[in-house]
Every structure is written in structure tokens, then in C-alpha cells.
């Protein structure tokens, strides 16, 4: 019985040692290189991704039962983008946002409405949708970010609900019928590879890959900036951060708006490829799935988040054989994952140090193993 009880911890520890060693040496090798070397490697990695991943053969292996050209950019790509955006809010600033779908919806409906009613070009709508999502993040955040912790969670959850219900109830955005026939983005320079059509997923994949690249780049820069350090301080101890002169409210608002804008970009992209949206696409389950991806991968660590998002988006497609049972399996997998590895697949190094230190960035009121842990508000 004792051995059985210890099993999760042992397995977790073994994985941790292994991933630590690999991670540390990879990290050292990476930072030892000059800038041009890093740039070159990123470019090579991207070229490989761009050529290999969208190919039919990979699709056959990765998702034999569904159209890889659709699944890859529209589901996996957009999902990774959204997880990167939510990571800014949850992973960096440590706020629990259960209504992230709201910003996805703002992006999606910006694309839908501006493209079909105003006939704007996709390349104009993309920044416009991002701006609209960021603005709605500010509007939602301004009154609610003064609240703490779990109150914020419930308010954002409520807001996510309001968005999809309102989209359903109002008529100017098509109500429950949604918006059909959203135009695809125009092609670039008449290149055959970059014609955004119906059957070929490749151009969309390149587009989403480019946006993911921008999001990762910005997130890395932000993390090391004054704001990023402020976020981490807020995440670890809000009162102490406030006392040390971190403008907590303003920084939280920033992280909310930045996270929102990435979600908005995801929405625009989705609408442009799917060329159809309706309120059911923006249900609150989406918020939950994105959050699960962030935590599963290891909140705060970009590669962890990307891996988590990929798993959450891809696994259900891969296992379409179990059509009926896949959400059941997904649910059980979440429980098992959290038991064996509560800090996620690839946690950020700083996060892990926190966990070891206080029994988990705000443990559940009553930790038994780690003494000295305190219940966070």
C-alpha cells in the first residue's frame, strides 16, 4: 500500500531528473552560442517545420481519420497561438482567466463582420481584430483586475458566458445562424504556394507559424523586460510586489490586454480559414481546454505551453478511433497527469523552484508534505 502511494511521486521524480538533465544541458548549449548561430538554428527549424509538417505523409501518421490540411493550421496552430496568449495571463502574471474564449470570439467576429459587411481586406482586419480584442481586454480588465485571485476567475468565467450568449441573442451578427461565407485571405504576390484556398492547408499553416513565431518572440522579450519581472513578482506575492513599487494593477491590466490580443489574432485566423463562425464555436469549453493546455504543458514555460497545446489539440484528432470515448480519456488523462506531474510536462525553472520552496505557488490550503506552505488568498 505504501509503495503504491509513493508510486506517483517516484515516477514524477524520475521524469524530473531526466528532463532536468536534458533541459539543463540543452539550455547551456543554447546560451553558449553567438546570436547568428541561434538565428540560423531557428530559421532551419522553421524551414524544416514548414516543409515537413504539412505534408500528406505526416498527416497520414498524425491524423489518419481527419483532414490534416484543416486540422493542422485551424485547430492545432490556432490553439497553440491561444495557449501562448493565455500563458501571458496565467503563466507569467499568475491570474486565473476562465473566460479566455471571449477574446477569441472578439477576433472571430471582427473577421466575420468586417470581411462580410465592410469588405475589408484580411491584412487590415488582422491588426484591427487584434486591436479590438486588446481593447475589450482593457474594458473587461479595468473594473475586474482590482479583484483578487478566484474572484477574477469567476468574473472572467461569467464574461466568457456572456459573450457567447450575447452573440447568440443579437441579430446583427447573425444570431445562432452565425456568419457564413467569410472570405479567405487574398493570396500574396500570386505565388501558388501562398494562395489561401479551401483544400490546401499550407498557406494557413505558414501564416499561423509566422504568428506563433511573433508571439514567442514577444513573449520572450516581455518576460525579460521590466513588465515581465513585475508580473513574476506579482505572481509570487502581490502584496510584496506592491510594496516594492510594482504598479500591480497597471501591469496586470497589461498582461490581460496582451493575452487578449493574441487570443484575438487566433480568432481572426480561425474565421478566415473556416470561413464560417457561429456562437457554438466560442463556448466556454474552449477557455477550459486552453487553460488545460497551459497548465498541462507547464505554465510559464513557452516550450511547455506549446507542447501542452499541441497535445490537447492533437490527441483527440489522433484518437478519433475512440470517437465516443475521447473526452472521457482526455478527462482521465488530465487527472492522471496532474497527479504524476502537477507542475506540467515542462515547467519553467523558476516555477519549479517556487514549488520546491513553498509547496506550490499557492498550495491548496493544507499541504501535508511541504511544511511552511501557506494558503494564498
Amino acid at each position, binding site marked *: 500500500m505504501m509503495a503504491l502511494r509513493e508510486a*506517483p511521486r517516484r515516477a*514524477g521524480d524520475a521524469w524530473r531528473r531526466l528532463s532536468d538533465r536534458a533541459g539543463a544541458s540543452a539550455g547551456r548549449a543554447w546560451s553558449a552560442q553567438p546570436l547568428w548561430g541561434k538565428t540560423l538554428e531557428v530559421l532551419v527549424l522553421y524551414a524544416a517545420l514548414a516543409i515537413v509538417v504539412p505534408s500528406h505523409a505526416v498527416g497520414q501518421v498524425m491524423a489518419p481519420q481527419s483532414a490534416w490540411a484543416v486540422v493542422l493550421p485551424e485547430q492545432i496552430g490556432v490553439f497553440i497561438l491561444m495557449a501562448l496568449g493565455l500563458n501571458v495571463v*496565467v503563466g507569467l502574471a499568475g491570474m*486565473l482567466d476562465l473566460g479566455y474564449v471571449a477574446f477569441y470570439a472578439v477576433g472571430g467576429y471582427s473577421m466575420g463582420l468586417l470581411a462580410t459587411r465592410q469588405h475589408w481586406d484580411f491584412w487590415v482586419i488582422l491588426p484591427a481584430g487584434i486591436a479590438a480584442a486588446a481593447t475589450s481586454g482593457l474594458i473587461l480588465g479595468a*473594473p*475586474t483586475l*482590482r*479583484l483578487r485571485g*478566484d*474572484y477574477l476567475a*469567476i*468574473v472572467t*468565467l*461569467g*464574461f466568457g*458566458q*456572456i459573450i457567447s*450568449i*450575447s452573440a*447568440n*441573442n443579437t441579430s446583427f451578427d447573425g444570431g445562432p445562424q452565425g456568419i457564413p461565407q467569410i472570405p479567405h485571405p487574398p493570396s500574396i504576390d500570386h505565388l501558388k504556394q501562398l494562395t489561401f484556398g479551401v483544400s490546401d492547408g499550407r498557406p494557413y499553416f505558414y501564416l499561423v507559424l509566422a504568428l506563433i513565431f511573433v508571439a514567442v518572440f514577444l513573449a520572450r522579450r516581455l518576460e525579460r523586460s521590466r513588465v515581465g519581472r513585475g508580473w513574476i513578482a506579482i505572481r509570487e506575492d502581490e502584496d510584496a510586489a506592491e510594496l516594492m513599487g510594482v504598479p500591480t494593477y497597471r501591469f496586470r491590466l497589461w498582461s490581460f490586454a496582451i493575452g487578449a490580443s493574441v487570443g484575438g489574432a487566433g480568432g481572426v485566423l480561425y474565421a478566415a480559414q473556416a470561413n464560417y463562425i457561429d456562437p457554438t464555436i466560442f463556448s466556454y469549453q474552449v477557455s*477550459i481546454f486552453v*487553460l*488545460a493546455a497551459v*497548465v*498541462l504543458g507547464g*505554465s510559464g514555460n513557452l516550450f511547455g505551453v506549446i507542447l501542452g497545446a499541441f497535445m490537447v489539440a492533437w490527441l483527440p484528432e489522433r484518437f478519433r478511433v475512440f470517437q*465516443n*470515448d475521447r*473526452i*472521457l480519456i*482526455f*478527462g*482521465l*488523462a*488530465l*487527472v492522471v*497527469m*496532474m*497527479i504524476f506531474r*502537477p*507542475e506540467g510536462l515542462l515547467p519553467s525553472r523558476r516555477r519549479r523552484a517556487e*514549488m520546491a520552496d513553498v*509547496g*506550490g*505557488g*499557492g*498550495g*491548496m*490550503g*493544507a*499541504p*501535508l*508534505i*511541504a*511544511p511552511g*506552505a501557506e*494558503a*494564498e*488568498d
Partner: protein
Amino acid sequence: MSLHSFVAEFWPSTVDGLVLGSIYALFALGYTMVYGVLKLINFAHSEVFMVGTMAVLAVLTVLHVHTPPGGFILVGLLLVCVLVAMAASGFTAVLLERVAYRPLRRRGASRLAALISAIGASFALQEVFGIYYTRNATEMTAIMGNSVVFTLGAARVTSDDLLVIITGVVMMVALERLVATTKFGRGIRAVAQDPETATLMGVNLDRIILYTFLIGGLMAGVAATLFDVHYHQTRYDVGQLPGLKAFTAAVLGGIGNLRGALVGGLVIGLLEFYGASVFGSQWRDPVVFIVLVLVLLVRPTGILGESLARARA
């Protein structure tokens, strides 16, 4: 928007709101007590409620109830239903604690990890019923005939309305007394205040947490029975929206606060029906959440404040 229909439907809305509100209040206990003790959003509690509604359905099916009985048989049937539902929900809540929360707690996992584990457990439980039972809504026999007891303005108050409201309020008061006056209640309050010191003072932490989940589950079982008595239908995801509302009720009243759950539940129930009569029934849910946001802006810890720990005898 129509104030006329608000006036015309005032009494029926009030009665319906109080009925739904009492169910929310009982349902909210599982959220509010677990939050008070563990500082954790008990996301899977909606499924504890769902299991309760399914248990009542099972009782009615097994006993071949096709018409509402009367007299002592009705009382007996209600008792059987509520006991079975409480057992089923209580068992589910305890199971959740053992499987989805306790292993994480032992490893000192973050609350975010526990939330994800709860979400996973919630999906899994829903799917078990969705896959192995049915994804369609199941109508069940009305346990009580809707005999009108008295009228209140335009509202016809039926016997099941009364049963729901009275049971809800009585259970809430009883539980509040339990936590405020008994030794066991003192243990809960101690853990809510400071788990570490409570442990040092000889409180068995694991047992208190388990009982907290159990009580939340039992009350969800009562709520589920009342839900079935009044709405007589269920579905594999029946707990989801009411669960969200019940949690909102707990937050609105002041999370961790038992009286707050009652106040929050009743307020949300009333708001839903008043909101529906003013803005139309499709705006029922947005109204609730907008009011929640507004209340939290004025009183950031809910109407009565958060205080499972500070409850005094």
C-alpha cells in the same frame, strides 16, 4: 425591455426564483465549504449534483413509479429518493476527494493543478453518463402532483414549490448550526483559519477535509432531489449551468460563508426570473453575471464577506 411584464409577472417570478434559489443555495455549499477549507474551486461539484439527479431517476425506474403517489407513500418515496441521492452524491464527492484532490494535496501541488485535475474529473464523470447511459435529456415521472396550495398575486404556489423552498432553508440553517456549534464544526473552522496550527492542535486534517467534501456532496444530493421533484428531468451535463450559477451564488454571497451561500443562491434565483421578465428569457444568464460583476466592484468579497473561519456560535 419591458417593465410592464416585470410587474405582471412579479409574483410568479418571485416564487420561481425562490424555488430555483433554494436549489442553488444547497448546491453552492459544496463550492463554498471546499473553498473555505482548501481555497480551491471545486470544479467537479457540478457532476456530484448530476450523479444525484441520476440516482433519483434510478429509484423511480426501479420502483416503477409512473404516477405521482399520495399520502404516506409519497412521503416514503421522497425519503427514499433523497436518501439514495444523498448517498450517491456523497459517495461521488468523497471519491473525487480521494482520486482527484488528495494525491495532489500530498504532493503540495498548486491550486491551478488541482483545478485542472477537477476539470478532468468533471469531464470524465459527465462522459461516463453520456457514453454509457444517454446523451439525451431524460424526462422522469413527476413525484408530486402539482396541487395548488395557495395563490400569491398571479402566482399559484404549488406543493412542490413549498417543499423545495422549505427543505432548502431548513437544511441551510441546520448546516449553519452544525458548523457554528458542534465540535466537528469547530474543526472545520479551525482548518479554514489556519490548517497548520489546526493540525498542531490535534485536528485530523485529512478527516476534516474528507467530511467537508462529504457534506458538500450530501447537500448536493438534497439539491438534486429537489431539482428532480420540481423540474423532473435530467441529462449527463445537467449540472453544468446550475453549477456555474451555484458557484456564482457562493461568490456573490461571500465565498466560504454558509449564510452567504443562502443569500447568494436566493438572490441569483430571483435575479434570473426578474431579469428574464424584464429583458426576455434569453438574457437570463447574462443578467446574472453582469450583476455579479457589479456587486463585486462595490463589495469585493461578496455580499456577506468571506468567512467560514470567522463563523461564530
